[in-house]
């Protein structure tokens, strides 16, 4: 998998994959953690514009990152959710933990993970 990230104005924007399930969860988790570690940001933004499918494995990844990131005093949000991902956020109660943002600037330096 090739994960895309942007770092801008103290924000780390993570482009989430097309399908988020158990199969990709481990790599996704490790990728995001590595980016958090090297980028020293205070705001973490999950960008779901490419995401068409997410199941409970995705919930686990998000809650885990949220918890770790929250400990270090950062804030987290999610943007560009399609109706399906929004439904998953609502049904799981994840929307109470991770605020769903609206528009997010997409310009800026692009950093590619592997």
């Amino acid at each position: 998998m090739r994960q895309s990230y942007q770092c801008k104005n103290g924000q780390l924007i993570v482009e989430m994959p097309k399908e988020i399930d158990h199969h990709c969860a481990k790599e996704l988790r490790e990728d995001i953690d590595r980016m958090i570690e090297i980028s020293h940001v205070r705001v973490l933004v999950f960008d779901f514009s490419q995401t068409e499918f997410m199941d409970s494995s995705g919930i686990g990844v998000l809650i885990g990152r949220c918890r770790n990131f929250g400990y270090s005093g950062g804030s987290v949000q999610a943007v560009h959710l399609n109706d399906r991902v929004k439904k998953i956020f609502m049904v799981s109660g994840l929307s109470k933990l991770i605020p769903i943002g609206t528009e997010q600037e997409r310009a800026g330096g692009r950093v590619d993970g592997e």
Partner: protein
Amino acid sequence: MENRMRLEFDAVSVNESFARVAVSAFFAQLNPTVDEIEDVKTAVSEAVTNSIIHGYGEKEGTVVVTCTYHDKDSEVVVIDEGVGIADIEKSMEPFFTTKPELERSGMGFAFMEAFMDEVSVESEPLKGTKVTMKKRFGERKLEE
């Protein structure tokens, strides 16, 4: 009309997407709405992932998925011959998980129940687990 299919595959994570795509293709005949088919895909993904992670503990095994429909009534059955579940009622409670160290959230059964009309679980320790899920397509005419 009535129809039936049976899928048997190795309990490896790459087959999670295969299973949900195959099941959704099978039910496409019934002209489900996008929302309905996404509900089924999520539920199938949950049950199959559970068989792989919990049933077989990511060791070797076989997962069997059968799908049937009778007019607009669909049924999906997911079977593994893994470790089984000792306390089914408890395991179906939201947020209950036996694998928190793997960052599991305990939402799998909650999703199956939220997205399907009926979910029933039969399981016996050391024998395996059978999850039966039903959904009637075309019940809600919200999106026109």
